[in-house]
């Protein structure tokens, strides 16, 4: 019950935050130089003032700023993200088209980074001071220091171009019209490289965090208690240290969801992944206001969702939180 109430109150706060984000971004994006009507007219091949005026009228850009803002906010309150004039479709449809790809990519990367990060962190902590620990921590440091896009480029070069093991870009084999399991397999193959490169950096983060946290918890008094009970080393690590050490990692992971979603812009660009990050980047150059704003809102909502999920996980793992609230 308390969990439910806590989530309810968080959601209420989250909705306010989202609205604030919408307003702020509206200001930001409209402050950018460049008129979407001119861009669109340019794309049409030739522009004369008459056409630009037509376009401005259609976009509602001829109206005063506060009217535009008011209309936008009013639309948002009705879950209407506006219309993309450049793409000729409602923004919500554009995003709905692209969102599954982004969700698949970020969630996979999230899970990969969390699972492998924690596993490697535990392994390193168990071998602390030994050569294998140094090797693992050095590796993590390297991952941490490697630019995401560079790793992506190198991965494509090696695994796709030289070795030919995995497709280097795209979401699925176009026109292969696979169905059922074959399609899942096909998408999974395309997913490997982008998810890995996106997850690599965060894997390093979680690994270092897990290792540090494991080492810190292993000096806790209750670990001494467990030893005094006659538990074996692995049992202590599993039952006592890991469970306590994982809490800060989960918190951090939830907080970093925003970076993960942002990092998807780079990954989606290099791997031609048809997600919302790329949609935003492309819309930016065209000053496709509504689409940029829509993507921002949706990705902020994703961040909040990640946060709420980690919060729930935290509450499940840690009995103290729910009771205290």
């Amino acid at each position, binding site marked *: 019950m308390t969990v439910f109430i806590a989530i309810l109150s968080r959601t209420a706060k989250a909705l306010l935050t989202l609205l604030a984000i919408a307003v702020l971004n509206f200001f930001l994006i409209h402050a*950018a130089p460049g008129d979407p009507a001119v861009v669109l007219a340019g794309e049409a091949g030739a522009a004369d003032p008459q056409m630009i005026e037509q376009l401005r009228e259609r976009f509602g850009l001829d109206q005063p700023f506060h009217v535009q803002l008011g209309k936008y906010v009013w639309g948002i309150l009705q879950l209407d993200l506006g219309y993309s004039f450049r793409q000729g479709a409602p923004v919500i449809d554009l995003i709905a088209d692209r969102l599954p790809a982004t969700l698949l990519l970020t969630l996979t990367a999230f899970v990969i980074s969390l699972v492998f990060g924690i596993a490697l962190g535990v392994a390193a902590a168990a071998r*602390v001071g030994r050569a294998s620990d140094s090797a693992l921590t050095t590796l993590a440091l390297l991952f*941490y*220091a490697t*630019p995401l896009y560079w790793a992506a480029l190198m991965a494509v070069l090696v695994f796709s171009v030289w070795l030919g093991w995995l497709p280097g870009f795209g979401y699925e084999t176009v026109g292969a019209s696979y169905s059922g399991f074959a399609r899942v397999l096909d998408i999974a193959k395309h997913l490997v490289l982008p998810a890995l490169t996106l997850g690599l950096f965060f894997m390093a983060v979680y690994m270092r965090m897990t290792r540090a946290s494991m*080492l810190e918890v292993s000096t806790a008094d209750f670990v001494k208690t467990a030893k005094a009970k006659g538990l074996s080393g692995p049992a202590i690590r599993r039952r006592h240290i890991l469970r306590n050490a994982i809490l800060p990692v989960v918190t951090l992971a939830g907080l970093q969801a925003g970076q993960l979603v*942002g990092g998807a812009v780079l990954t989606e660009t290099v791997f031609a992944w048809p997600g919302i990050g790329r949609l935003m980047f492309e819309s930016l150059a065209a000053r496709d206001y509504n689409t940029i704003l829509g993507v921002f809102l949706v990705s902020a909502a994703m961040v909040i969702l990640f946060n709420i999920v980690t919060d729930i996980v935290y509450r499940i793992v840690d009995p103290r939180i729910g009771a205290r609230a």
Partner: protein
Amino acid sequence: MWKRFSSNRPALVGVVLLIAVIAVALLAPVLFPNGPWKMVQRPFLMPMAVDGLPLGTDTLGRDVAAQLAYGAQVSLLVGLVSTLVALLIGVPLGALAGFYGGYVDEGAMRFTEFFQTIPNFALAIVLVAIFEPTLASITLAIAIVSWPPVARLVRAEVMSVRRREFVDAARLAGLSKPRILLTQVLPNTVSPIIVMASLMVATAILLESSLSFLGLGDPNALSWGYMIGAARTVIRSAWWLSFFPGLAIIITVLALNLIGEGLNDALNPHLRQRGQKP
């Protein structure tokens, strides 16, 4: 503290690497008086293929070694200045929130959370695009997306220091609140801030390179990310054009991380002992 730091071999490696990078950056105008943009030879020369061009030439026949050296200037400058700006935003905000609590805290933290909810790289892209890519706008954008963790850290530190008894003693001495914050509380939060700052410089360098890679770099200031972005299309035929700047980024970021960890161990001796030989 220096003793503890200097006994940490990885941290020393970090210092040596960073000094090397800084030296190259400072000496760039001496080593390469022609600047990084001068077209000096045929394009796409392999490293060592021609004397005097140890790292080869790029797509326009410019000296890659010169570009790396000048790129170091830009990367370090952006990394340092953006971190400073982020500190200038985050430290006061976090300090006020942590020290005064109540509505100040609530307001400041809402503000911070708000910025953390916006995916930061996406925000940086939009900011740079809006202000147009110049060194100043890139630096500012990186600062704007980097300060929230600073504010959170400073707030937490201030809150914990504020509860220490010497702060009560200072209040009993009749010191004003701003003075207590400035002279008693903040000096005691410096160590974790320094550690975080050193790691932030590393992150800022990565961010700058990512922006440049996407074409949002300052076209008049050659940076490593800019080089990789420019060379990305020829990665198959001229691997060295993206490889060396990538390596330079890795080395610099690695060095900063090693230093950051070394500082952390040296400044927080309690944490240092976990698991290692005391």
